[in-house]
């Protein structure tokens, strides 16, 4: 019995259709049953992405699910909350822990409140923000939300909607921190938060009792901006999400649009994109390594990492014309073909990097201080990483195989041999070494591709005005920090109806509280370095 029939028999009231993915639509009241069935009976234990939607008449949520056995085979669950005035849905955060933060984001952006979610504060926006920005009827009048020149106190109270035995819903409030706790702000201006991230940390001496992440300091509303931009125009914003995975992010969105247009991409382009992705991954992991060393007080190692990353940046500079914001992938190919010297530059870089990796391992990985600070600290179990969908090197360090390059091969990844770097310890040291090992894995991939770039076009001509056929599309790539997905809902216009970027960083922040409890302040910094979140990717 195939999956579709199985689901149909278990959920007779659901509408099932085969779009890009198998899509199950359920009514609001059947959501819990459908979610529980998918989670417990069919083993869909990964909630890849939770997307709020405004279909014009009704608001709703789209869930992208997969099982940890086959993380690349995705099933879509959709539901609607009919009421626009006071929309409410049941939470799924008891089934997939990652839903908690995502539902808070949906509440802030669409106003849908989730019953039984323990924390219904707005994520990314202030509690007193007027309107719900991603709704189609949002009033963007600056008078409604004037620029605040004074800082608001961060409230210690959080609301939640609790379902009573008789089915009614009651609003309750509880305290995050009591006023007897010693609370320290790590961020938003703090040297170790890598951007404007704000952790409120409750301390007992040096030990951490609780961490409450407070997000949204650089929320720019990129998803909303995309709704008013054409597809080629949209691209320039993706480089500014996770700026350290600029190539991969753009690869994902280009792939999503190209697949929707059913555009045939030349092999040469696929090779070039794959090479660039891997170089970006090395650059990003080097930066992560450097910053982690710096956070732990090893400033010299930081400079060494930056020195090596510079080599990749100058390759980008030469080929793409940009170093960080590379602007290279465009719909149909790449902006300009690689230069004749590109292969030589890359081939010079590979042995250099291998040599430097040895040095990096000698100066830092083997160091007794560093090792003792990382081993056994910030342990993340495999269950937790799946439940919170911590993908990428951080998840793989806990044994969660989530590499989209393996599970949904794209670009030229089906033509190369490489190992998904997996570890089982799940501590800070495992996450740290997973990154260094991924650098050498990436070097191997590049080595296999660099001499075999096929001849051909580097750009396919597209129509002057690109209109995506009506439908919903989602494409995935493996960015440096995990699986990055782009969801586009098109109504056949030249601008998308709704765009959602699956943040690779949000799960990383979501686990901080759990894995750093009872560790020390210094460990919180090391754990943060090993998780390697990038704030613009979380805040979008």
């Amino acid at each position, binding site marked *: 019995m195939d999956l579709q029939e199985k689901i149909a028999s278990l959920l007779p009231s659901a509408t099932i259709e085969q779009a890009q993915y198998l899509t199950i639509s359920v009514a609001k009241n059947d959501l819990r049953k459908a979610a529980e069935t998918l989670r417990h009976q069919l083993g869909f234990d990964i909630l890849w992405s939770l997307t709020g939607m405004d279909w014009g008449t009704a608001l709703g949520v789209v869930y992208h699910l997969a099982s940890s056995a086959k993380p690349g085979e995705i099933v879509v669950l959709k539901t609607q909350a009919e009421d626009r005035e006071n929309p409410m849905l049941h939470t799924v955060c008891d089934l997939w822990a990652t839903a908690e933060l995502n539902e808070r984001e949906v509440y802030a952006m669409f106003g849908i409140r989730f019953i039984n979610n323990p924390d219904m504060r707005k994520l990314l926006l202030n509690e007193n923000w007027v309107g719900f920005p991603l709704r189609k009827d949002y009033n963007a009048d600056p008078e409604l939300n004037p620029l605040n020149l004074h800082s608001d106190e961060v409230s210690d109270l959080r609301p939640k909607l609790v379902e009573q035995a008789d089915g009614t819903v009651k609003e309750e409030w509880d305290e995050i921190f009591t006023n007897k706790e*010693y609370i*320290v702000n790590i961020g938003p201006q*703090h*040297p*170790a938060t890598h951007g404007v991230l704000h952790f409120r940390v409750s*301390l007992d001496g*040096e030990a951490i009792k609780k961490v409450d992440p407070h997000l949204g300091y650089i929320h720019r509303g990129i998803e909303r901006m995309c709704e008013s931009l054409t597809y080629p125009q949209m691209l320039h914003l993706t480089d500014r999400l996770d700026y350290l995975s600029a190539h991969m992010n753009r690869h994902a969105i280009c792939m999503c649009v190209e697949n929707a247009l059913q555009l045939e991409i030349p092999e040469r382009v696929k090779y070039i994109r794959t090479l660039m992705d891997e170089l970006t991954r090395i650059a990003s992991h080097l930066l992560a390594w450097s910053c982690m*060393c*710096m*956070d*732990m*007080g*090893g*400033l*010299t*190692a930081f*400079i*060494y990492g930056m*020195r090596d990353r510079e080599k990749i940046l100058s390759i980008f500079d030469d080929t793409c014309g940009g170093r960080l914001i590379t602007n290279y992938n465009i719909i149909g190919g790449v902006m300009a073909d690689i230069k004749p010297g590109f292969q030589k530059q890359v081939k010079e870089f590979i042995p250099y990097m291998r040599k430097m990796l040895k040095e990096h391992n000698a*100066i*830092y990985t083997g*160091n007794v*201080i*560093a090792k*003792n*600070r990382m081993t056994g600290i910030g342990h993340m179990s495999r269950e937790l990483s799946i439940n919170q969908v911590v993908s990428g090197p951080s998840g793989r360090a806990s044994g969660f195989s989530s590499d989209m390059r393996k599970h949904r091969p794209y670009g030229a990844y089906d033509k190369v041999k490489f190992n998904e770097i997996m570890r089982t310890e799940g501590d800070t040291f495992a996450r740290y070494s997973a990154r260094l090992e991924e650098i050498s894995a990436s070097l191997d991939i590049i080595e296999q591709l660099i001499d075999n770039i096929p001849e051909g076009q580097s750009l396919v001509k597209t129509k002057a005005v690109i209109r995506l056929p009506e439908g919903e599309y989602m494409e995935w790539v493996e960015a440096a920090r995990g699986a990055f997905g782009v969801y586009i809902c098109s109504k056949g216009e030249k601008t998308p109806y709704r765009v959602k970027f699956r943040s690779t960083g949000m799960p990383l922040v979501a686990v901080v509280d759990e894995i750093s409890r009872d560790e*020390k*302040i*210094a*460990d919180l*910094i090391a754990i943060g370095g090993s998780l390697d979140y990038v704030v613009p990717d979380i805040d979008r």
Partner: protein
Amino acid sequence: MNLELRTLMQLIDEGLRANLPKFWAVAIECLSVGLALLAGYAVLAMLLIYVERKVCAWFQVRIGPNRVGPFGIFQTVADTLKMLLKEVIPINHVDRFLFYTAPFVVIAASMLTFAALPFAKGIQAIDFNIGVFYIMAISSISILGILLAGWSSNNKFSMIGAMRSGAQMISYELSVGLSLLAIVMLSGTMQLSTLVEQQADLWFIFQGHVPAFIAFVIYLIAGHAETNRGPFDLPEAESELTAGFHTEYSGIHFGFFYLAEYLNMFIIAGIAATVFLGGWQPLHIPGLDGFNYVMDFIPSFIWFLAKVFFLIFLSLWVRWTFPRLRIDQLLHLEWKYLMPLSLLNILIMAVLVVMGWHF
């Protein structure tokens, strides 16, 4: 030709005594010694900051300061001027008296220790018969300043930093004391001038060979920790506590902490050089008279500074290689590794001295 500073001092002394009543001569001498020490303190601090920035840059394959003056040599002069001109920002809700006293406590403690160092032959301002004891006692006052700074700042980061510093200083004082004790046992004196004179033929690190060398290494590690510099910079730990105990300080008050940090590095290296490496004594190897004769031509203050700067370079090398320890690792290192070793080392030294196995 005699390049010794002492000759110059004697000339000045004779000149003053010949022309002035004894009281005024002594008064002027005291005053000028004080001024010279203060000036030396400030100049050394500026020099050390420059050296640190340059050496750090070389370790990090960078160039370092190169804008102000040739090779950036006036960089720290400019920085000092800036520091002097900077506004001291008043902070609300601090304990004003303690807050403004703290930097002075820190700088006074390091100044008093600095004054006791024998810089060259006959150049030593304070020479007690309990010199080693005096240095130990005075240098541990600076921790009071750090605790006061952290406590009075009304800032949570400062508070955590100060508490860390307290735990750290109290622990590492022990190793510092025990390692110096090993040499006191060997020499039988606590007076710094006598200590130096006893090393005229052979430095203590060679006289006491194995235990002296162990004591030397322990002293360097523990002393490095006492200066609150990486990898022991937990009290300020910039990636955890922003700036630790001196987060709230600005202008010259911050400057005092900054100055004291660098001078403490000099002081620790200076004590190590005096106690283990013969202070201002030249390198003498018994039996090689020709070599010893040549070595004597190098003035004593150059010997002293050369040894001190060599030790400072070691300290910078360590600082710019290792990541910061965590508080529990820091205490482990002291109580589980350095302390037992120091105690064992004292025992070995005692046996050595009793049996006369030293040189």
